[in-house]
């Protein structure tokens, strides 16, 4: 991922900063600058999510792209944040432990790197809540 494209969304990736449409109240993560319901009538503000949620569905990736090679098997899941939006993320737990409905919370981890000499991409993953 290019330097500027990664940088542009650092607050979103590190701190789950999404958006909210104050006109209809809907929350968005990943962030949206246009509310799909209100469109131009929507007033969008930033919103920082708590980082707590529930696993909606998941898989265990065993064959990955080059960037994630050698990190398999890893758990990929769709997590529904308590505030409503759903996101796609990794869950750092043994594959046998992940379940639909499992409660999870956000943690700061290294997502990928641009080779040995490029930049490191940090971001948010989730872990089971004990």
């Amino acid at each position: 991922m290019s330097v500027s494209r990664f940088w542009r969304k650092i607050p979103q990736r590190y701190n789950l900063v999404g958006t909210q449409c104050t006109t209809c109240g809907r929350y968005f993560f990943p962030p949206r600058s246009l509310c799909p319901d209100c469109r131009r009538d929507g007033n969008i503000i930033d919103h920082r999510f708590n980082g707590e949620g529930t696993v909606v569905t998941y898989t265990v990736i065993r064959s990955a792209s080059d960037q994630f090679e050698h990190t398999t098997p890893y758990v990929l899941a769709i997590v529904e944040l308590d505030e409503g939006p759903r996101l796609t993320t990794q869950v750092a737990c043994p594959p046998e432990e992940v379940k639909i409905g499992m409660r999870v919370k956000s943690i700061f981890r290294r997502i990928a790197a641009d080779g040995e000499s490029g930049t490191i991409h940090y971001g948010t993953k989730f872990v089971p809540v004990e």
Partner: protein
Amino acid sequence: MVGIYSYGVYIPRYRIKVPEIARVWGGNANDVMRGLGVFEKSVPDLDEDTATIAVEAARAAMRRRTVDPEAIGAIYVGSESHPYAVKPTACTVGEAIGATPNMTAADYEFACKAGTAGIQTCMGMVKSRMIPFGIAIGADVAQGAPGDALEYTAAAGGAAFVIGDENTIAEINETCSFTTDTPDFWRREGQNYPRHGGRFTGDPGYFKHVQGAARLMFEKVGTDPKDYDYAIFHQPNAKFPQRVAKMLGFTEEQIRPGLVVPRLGNTYSGASMIGLAATLDVAKPGDRIFVTSFGSGAGSDAFDITVNDTIDSAEFDRTAAPTVEKLLANPTYLDYALYAKHKGKIVMQK
């Protein structure tokens, strides 16, 4: 009075046992464990590094006590394993805790005492009223060369201390340091693993500097070991801190809560700081704590600390983040092959 406003620790969940390392290199496990007093060490996950550890430790400190991120005026991260040689870990931490952009930051290196050097810097900036709060972090994913004695103990972990000057949970009454140019342990730029002077790392290294800083502190504040409830020394293994404690006149009981190395290994820049955190986990108001770190190269930072009532108050919630004991419990064990993969010791196709 300047002191510790909050603290947090992060230790990865994986471990490797000393006998498993000995098995690979033909060492005698019992001799090693008896000689070092270390039984297992922590290992980072594939997606953990010094930056992720530093962030989680800082976030743990922020969960235990409300700190306005915009009031954090400085962040210093000390480590021997910063992910970048050029591009500070402290900036990533600042972004991840919402302290940017109105702050200063830098990364420190001073072997295992880089984190405590950060505490001293924050103390100066807070005491002089340059900033309301500063955060000093010591974190490492330490590397020991395969087959070398240091491989038994080089571990991963970190601690963050928020330094402030009002309503602290513990006051730092005094700090002083003892520093010389001593080549006991080093790593040249570009090299994967550190080298060391073998037995030279003992008396001319660790013992000279720890005792130097400790005695300077006794002189400065007019104390001796019996004035303290607890003491924490840098812990590259269990023997060195036990021996220096005895040499200085501290008892086994005084160093016990802070001696985490047998189950954790040496977290390098995190070592003394995690020991201090483990002690604060059990300390009560009025307890007096003596800390002396050590970093090769070489130097020691000593601290004289008194715990306040605030540690038991509603403002500070120790349970909002895991204690060191909780982080040490229920680990997942790896064999040497997975450990080598996690530590990036396997030569991969570039």
